[in-house]
């Protein structure tokens, strides 16, 4: 059952000094998970950024539903060594609801982030974007640096709990895309 239209992308070309990615066409409705697939260098992450204004748009259009709230999970993360921030602090920043976190992480929210493993930290960071109040969630390589338990929990959660949102994700992990996405859009090189 399709929800209301959140995003309509038509002929989108995006880049930095000049266009490096696109054209891209797709629509996204609430409850859908659209995966952007394509070879390395096709500009999938650039196009994802263009959806919220993170890079220059050189052509086409991105039409967003009025009042659309966007949450974007970017690749990479600051070095958190020595930073006195707990898991509760991190989720509180984006307003993310901790309900639904895997048990192996939910019990450690009171600890400093630099006491968590790389996989736990990546999952928490992902969760801070995924569970933030937003209509549209943009995930850039969400499985990077996750361990198998993390990927499994993410796939399970996306499969059953994201109904109120629309999600666009980029991943090199074809099996993950096939497992969680309701639709896949190919991005040309």
């Amino acid at each position, binding site marked *: 059952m399709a929800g209301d239209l959140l995003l309509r992308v038509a002929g989108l070309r995006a880049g930095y000094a000049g266009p490096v990615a696109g054209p891209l066409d797709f629509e996204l409705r609430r409850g859908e998970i659209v995966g952007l697939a394509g070879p390395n260098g096709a500009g999938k992450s650039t196009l994802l950024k263009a959806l*919220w204004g993170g890079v220059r748009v050189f052509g086409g259009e991105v039409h967003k539903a009025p009042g659309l709230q966007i949450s*974007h999970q970017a690749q990479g993360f*600051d070095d958190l*060594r020595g930073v*006195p921030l707990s898991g509760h602090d991190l989720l509180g920043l984006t307003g993310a609801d901790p309900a639904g976190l895997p048990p192996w992480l939910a019990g450690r929210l009171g600890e400093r982030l630099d006491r968590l493993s790389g996989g736990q930290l990546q999952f928490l960071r992902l969760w*801070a974007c995924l569970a933030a109040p937003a209509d549209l969630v*943009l995930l850039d390589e969400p499985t990077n640096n996750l361990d198998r338990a993390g990927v499994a929990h993410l796939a399970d959660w996306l499969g059953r709990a994201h109904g109120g949102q629309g999600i666009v994700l980029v991943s090199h992990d074809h099996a993950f895309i096939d497992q969680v996405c309701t639709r896949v859009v190919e991005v040309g090189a």
Partner: protein
Amino acid sequence: MSFELLFDPLFRVPFATGLLLAAILPLIGMYLRLRNEWLAALAFAQMASAGALVAMVLDGPMLAGGVLAALLAALVKGLLARAGASAYALMMLLAWGGGVLLVANHPLAEQAGHALFDGQLYFTGEAHLLVTALAAVVVLPALAWLSRPLLLARFFPEFYRARGQNERPRLLLFDLLAGLVVALATVSLGVMAAFALVFVPPLFGWRFGRGWRSALVLAALAGMGGYSVAFALSLGLDQPFGPVCASLLVMLIVVTGVKLDRM
């Protein structure tokens, strides 16, 4: 050595002024460290020092001159955000050069210059206390309001832009608050004591805090504790406050084993 002066009413106002600043400066320092901008505090302090000297030479109030110069520095820093540490270094050099030349060439500036560079807290008067208390009333709630945007800017830099909002005004407001507090501290405590209270106590917060709030509390407590001991020692030993405060804080870092390579 005599500690009887500690109980002299003459020193109550300077002590209270410094204690208030010793609570606020580490909080400012926590957010400057968060943004990797702690060097900006030294630039603000040098600019405040030069501004205070210029004001005195022009027969104006040093407090106002220092605050205006530091606010100008904060504004420049905020508007030239991409210049980063280079902008702070240039500001420091400019302010230091101007300040030293004034001290060397103007008889009135010499004594005030020594007070600013050495950190002679005991010349602080009721006007300093009043302005510092008023600043605290504005700065502390503003910092509480700015905390989330400042943390988001570090850990989720795209958060506001993805929601169609501009985070720059909030960051600029923080720069101005930092400039104001550092300027007040510079004209009350001296350049290096102000910088030491911005830079060192947050190291305790970062090392021992279990979360952001506890780190803030720890930093403020370390600042007030270190300041109080330094005040008593400098008075009792008849030494300038600035060097005693800076040295004591650094020794505390060494004694407590804070590992700088993990920050």
